[in-house]
């Protein structure tokens, strides 16, 4: 069940998101989109547990999470800033058999991310790349500003992303060349950058509850079958 996992690498992704790479004692792999529990223990035995999405396929026995720092949070600031490299946390997982993409499913994929909701969707993009899948992916990623785009370098490199089309939807601040007006995701965004319903895409939406609710409503209004839409909400 619980096993010790050593923090082997920490990568700052944005001002508020950090990737942590752990080396568990034993890891038998996971599906893209699954999460795992991380348990922290204080000297007096007090414990806190949170679930985090796995951000990439396991590689060389290592797994990674991207953690968004929650102001005054109990666990995320410690993970992002304080857990020393080389130290151990406890991990249990993988967990969740629903919000997952399997490469055997050859339908086109539409990923809709709000903020740090990108993490399990990026795991799907990385899994697609790792197995050299040719399933066409489209990602719509709503984010406040360019500085808050997690995985921005990786998403911007065409050589890594053949068959993946990424559309960034800025809500507060955008680079000058962007012509889309600032604002929340809307019908026009999904019409312009998503898959039409007749392509019967597998749809994955992840983000804050309000964002997921809005995006799912748009997909339904466009005629997407609700059984092709999987959602994961937080906050």
């Amino acid at each position: 069940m619980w096993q010790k996992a050593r923090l082997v690498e920490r990568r700052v992704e944005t001002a508020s998101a950090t990737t942590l790479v752990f080396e568990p004692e034993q890891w038998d792999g996971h599906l893209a989109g699954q999460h795992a529990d991380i348990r922290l223990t204080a000297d007096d035995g007090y414990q806190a547990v949170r679930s985090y999405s796995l951000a990439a396929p396991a590689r060389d026995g290592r797994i990674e999470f991207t953690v968004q720092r929650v102001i005054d949070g109990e666990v995320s600031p410690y993970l992002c800033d304080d857990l020393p490299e080389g130290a151990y946390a406890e991990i249990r997982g993988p967990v969740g058999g629903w919000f997952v993409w399997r490469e055997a499913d050859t339908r086109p994929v539409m990923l809709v991310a709000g903020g740090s909701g990108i993490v399990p969707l990026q795991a799907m993009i990385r899994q697609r790349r790792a197995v050299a899948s040719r399933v066409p992916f489209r990602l719509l990623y709503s984010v406040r500003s360019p500085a808050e785009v997690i995985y921005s370098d990786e998403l911007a490199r065409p050589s890594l992303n053949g068959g993946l089309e990424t559309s960034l939807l800025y809500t507060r601040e955008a680079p000058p060349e962007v012509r889309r007006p600032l604002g929340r995701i809307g019908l026009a965004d999904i019409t312009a950058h998503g898959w039409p319903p007749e392509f019967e895409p597998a749809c994955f939406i992840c983000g804050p509850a309000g964002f997921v609710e809005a995006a799912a409503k748009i997909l339904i209004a466009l005629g997407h079958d609700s059984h092709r839409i999987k959602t994961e909400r937080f906050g």
Partner: protein
Amino acid sequence: MSGLTPGFRGHRRIESDRVPPGQYLTEDFPVLSAGPTPSIGTDDWTFTVVAETGERHVWDWRQFAALPQETPTADIHCVTRWSKLDTTWKGVSIDTLLAEVDTTADFAVVHTFDGYTTNMPFADITDGQAWVVTEYEGEPLAAEHGGPARFLLPHLYFWKSAKWVSAITLHDEDNPGFWERAGYHDYGDPWLEQRYQSGW
């Protein structure tokens, strides 16, 4: 546990003997569901009980509203680790819905308008332990929280309290539901931390 997460202190939330192990208290009411929120009008709404014999009982919205209503207060515990104390609801006890049903079933499956299911022993939904609720905190239940009606089974993890509930079917055998087949525990007692099937 020396060497584990050095320097971690935690927030020392207020201890309460009403909070099961591994849970933390929240004042919010987070929304968790696997797909889009369905839109179900009360004109189209019905609730159905099907016994293991095939005997069916169906109520429409007006008939359901005319049944004796109860106002349970309950502590709820989500498998994603938040707990919320003293939530108040209004709805119909499962005992009322089963009053005319002839059954010796050992298990129940709760069904929803969006096609999900969740299972539990029959003994867990009788004797004032479960309801079909249509109000939360004195207001009609919002669609995102399962409105017009959700199942309420507060002594098990909250995924068992299915949103957008449409029916209960009674069975002689256990039939694992949607989340239970997707890796969650078959029973889901929060006090025993029965979160996941073993092996997950």
